[in-house]
């Protein structure tokens, strides 16, 4: 089904009529209109999850009033009135933020929410360091635990989106945490960095170091590719191989720059230069256009 034959649905938000497509989630539809419903576990590029409940709103349909998590509520044909910021909703969010703040006091996004919702820090659990039983606590792990809110964005990005499944949830209850399997450096990690980019709290660190890319606290370390053009280190090797194998290009790690059958190995800067040179040669790009590239 193409974009323009999707069915439009009209709803009312605080008395204002707005529209969205059938099947779209309520959170995105109402935030598009500027209602600023807070959310943490939701990410537009990832499957809905409904873990944090921060996006809870009040709805009225068929004469019934209820509180629902808007990120997992698909737009459908029904009379729907939405109240994103009632007193009840506000109190619920305060409670959620209070708990999150106790769990992850170092996460900036939580601190900001706490300020916005006027939530104060409660007492801290005493035995924080024993948090993940049975694993040795490194500094990186400790820092991670003080920030991670278990929203599962990283797990969904790595598993559902990319199919790498290098990390997952482990244990349960107070010990639930995100980890590579067996708490060992994850073999399945390609170094794509998706987990790092979707994490709302900064609980994941990604760093270039010497010839490799490190992602903590997963203890992931992948080699970087050397740009055949300028010799600079850029994308992770495994990641490039992965892309090649998925789009079915024969991967020849040792072929030289001149006969490159794909531009994927070039660093972004060299790639632009290469495209420009080709364009100028074939006259698809004229002088003066080059600074656009």
């Amino acid at each position, binding site marked *: 089904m193409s974009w323009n034959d999707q069915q439009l649905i009209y709803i009312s938000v605080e008395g204002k009529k707005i529209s969205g497509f059938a099947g779209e989630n309520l959170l995105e539809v109402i935030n598009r209109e500027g209602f600023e419903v807070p959310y943490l576990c939701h990410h537009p590029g990832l499957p809905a999850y409904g873990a944090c409940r921060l996006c809870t709103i009040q709805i009225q349909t068929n004469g019934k009033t209820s509180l629902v998590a808007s990120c997992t509520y698909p737009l459908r044909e029904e009379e729907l009135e939405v109240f994103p910021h009632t007193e009840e909703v506000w109190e619920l969010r305060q409670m959620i933020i209070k708990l999150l703040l106790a769990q992850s006091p170092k996460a900036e996004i939580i601190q900001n929410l706490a300020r916005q919702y006027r939530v104060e820090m409660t007492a801290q659990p005493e035995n924080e360091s024993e948090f993940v039983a049975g694993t040795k606590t490194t500094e990186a792990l400790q820092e991670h635990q003080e920030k991670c809110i278990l929203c599962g964005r990283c797990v969904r990005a790595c598993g559902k989106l990319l199919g790498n*499944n290098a990390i*997952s949830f482990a244990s349960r209850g107070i010990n639930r945490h995100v980890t590579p*399997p067996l708490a060992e450096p994850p073999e399945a990690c390609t170094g794509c960095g998706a987990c790092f980019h979707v994490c709302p709290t900064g609980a994941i660190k990604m760093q270039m170091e010497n010839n490799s890319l490190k992602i903590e606290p997963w203890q992931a370390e992948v080699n970087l590719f050397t740009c055949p053009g300028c010799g600079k280190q850029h994308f992770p090797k495994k990641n490039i191989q992965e892309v090649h194998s998925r789009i079915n290009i024969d991967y020849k790690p040792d072929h030289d720059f001149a006969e490159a059958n794909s531009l994927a190995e070039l660093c972004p800067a060299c790639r632009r230069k290469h495209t420009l040179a080709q364009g100028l040669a074939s006259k698809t790009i004229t002088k003066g256009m080059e600074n656009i590239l």
Partner: protein
Amino acid sequence: MSQHTINSKEQIEQITLKIITSYRHLSEEEMDWIALLQDIQDQFRYLPPDGLKLCARELNVPLSQLYSIATFYTCFSLAPRGKTEIQVCMGTACHIRGAEPILDKILQQLALNPGETSPDLEYSLETVNCVGACARGPLVIINSNYYGNLTMGQVENLLSKTRDINGEGKNG
């Protein structure tokens, strides 16, 4: 039959492979990962990481998924467990009937904390929450044998007694 010694990587893989064989024909929907892990745990009395890795490779499942399951259920252990597995019920009924001092006594005798295994792999100690035999509390389970209505005096002898009957599969 369960193994009472630590196996080499080769042994682990060989035995695990045999277990895997009976799951190979199952479709994705039919596959029961918990049952597979239970079979492996029955065999080794724990889930050897090398066995898990083999399952992931052979059955084409992410290792992270198996690890998630293995760490979610307390019946699975990723470290070798002792020959004698002791579970002390700390459920509400047993608690009221005096489980606390009994646990203390056992902790003292074994010099182990709940969740630990002695270095010689003789004992593993664990606390559990209600095993459905509340009327017989306080209650200790040793290698699946239930010892109910325990008094402090009985606890004293219990461990030495189990050392004697261990392996003979008698019911208490």
